[in-house]
């Protein structure tokens, strides 16, 4: 459980089991509204997260943690193309910016759906990683959610890692 004290009030936020559904809803809304991309649930989880494109946004305040989106380069390119009506072409910088914005909106949309977070949690600017051969070491998380949604049959991975 994160703890955040402001003006003598402790805005502690405890993750709840229904947050996974909230995160899924937040992701589906953002992809649909901003890219015209319909995400659906898999009937069977498609293995471990993989893909060469990772976008992440940090959270600080009432909840400390990290939200990420991960997918293959081909999926990221397709999504960027849909967001920009094809203008993304093959420009990696634009594709990265598009992924970062999707993650930023995913984080903001999730935050706005949890009333206890809206006014007491800040988001970092997005960070984008290109490449698959990395390991992210953070403070030991005390909770988290991870799931994949299908975009035209390909998995897009979403996660929320929460630190104590």
């Amino acid at each position: 459980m994160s703890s955040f004290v402001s003006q003598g009030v402790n805005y502690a936020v405890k993750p709840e089991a229904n947050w996974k559904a909230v995160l899924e809803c937040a992701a589906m809304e953002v992809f649909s509204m901003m890219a015209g991309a319909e995400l659906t649930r898999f009937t069977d989880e498609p293995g471990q997260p993989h893909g060469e494109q990772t976008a992440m946004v940090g959270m600080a305040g009432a909840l400390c943690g990290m939200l990420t989106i991960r997918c293959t380069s081909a999926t990221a390119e397709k999504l960027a193309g849909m967001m920009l009506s094809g203008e993304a072409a093959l420009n990696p910088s634009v594709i990265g910016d598009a992924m970062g914005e999707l993650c930023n909106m995913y984080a903001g949309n999730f935050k706005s759906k949890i009333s206890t977070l809206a006014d007491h949690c800040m988001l970092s600017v997005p960070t984008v990683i290109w490449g698959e051969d990395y390991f992210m070491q953070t403070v030991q998380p005390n909770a988290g959610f991870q799931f994949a949604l299908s975009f035209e049959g390909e998995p897009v991975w979403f996660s929320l890692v929460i630190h104590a």
Partner: protein
Amino acid sequence: MKKLHVLIVDDSSVMRKIVERSLRQAGLELEEVREAGNGAEALAELQNSAFDLILSDINMPAMDGLEFLRSLANVPSAKNVPVVMITTEGSESRVVEALSVGAKGYIRKPFTPEQIKERLAPLLGGAL
């Protein structure tokens, strides 16, 4: 229908393009669209051009949307130009602050062209 001169202020070039596309999808006739990556760049644009509408992000580097709004009070050419904030900011206090220092409305990301039309119509009169 009047064709509009619009200034879009956002640190993401992707988001600036999406906002422009959404404005067109919402039915706005755009004569000219200028872009700025932060409040300081937007103030520079205002030195050279007149606008009918300004759409601005809140969280930006160098000069954020709130500081930009405060600075607009000293820009004669921006008088009576509606400024609408477009933000992922879930904080009501930041939105209220923006409205208190001159913003005429706000649109939360993600958004649809229909939501843009709904928010801008009262501000643009016959342009929508």
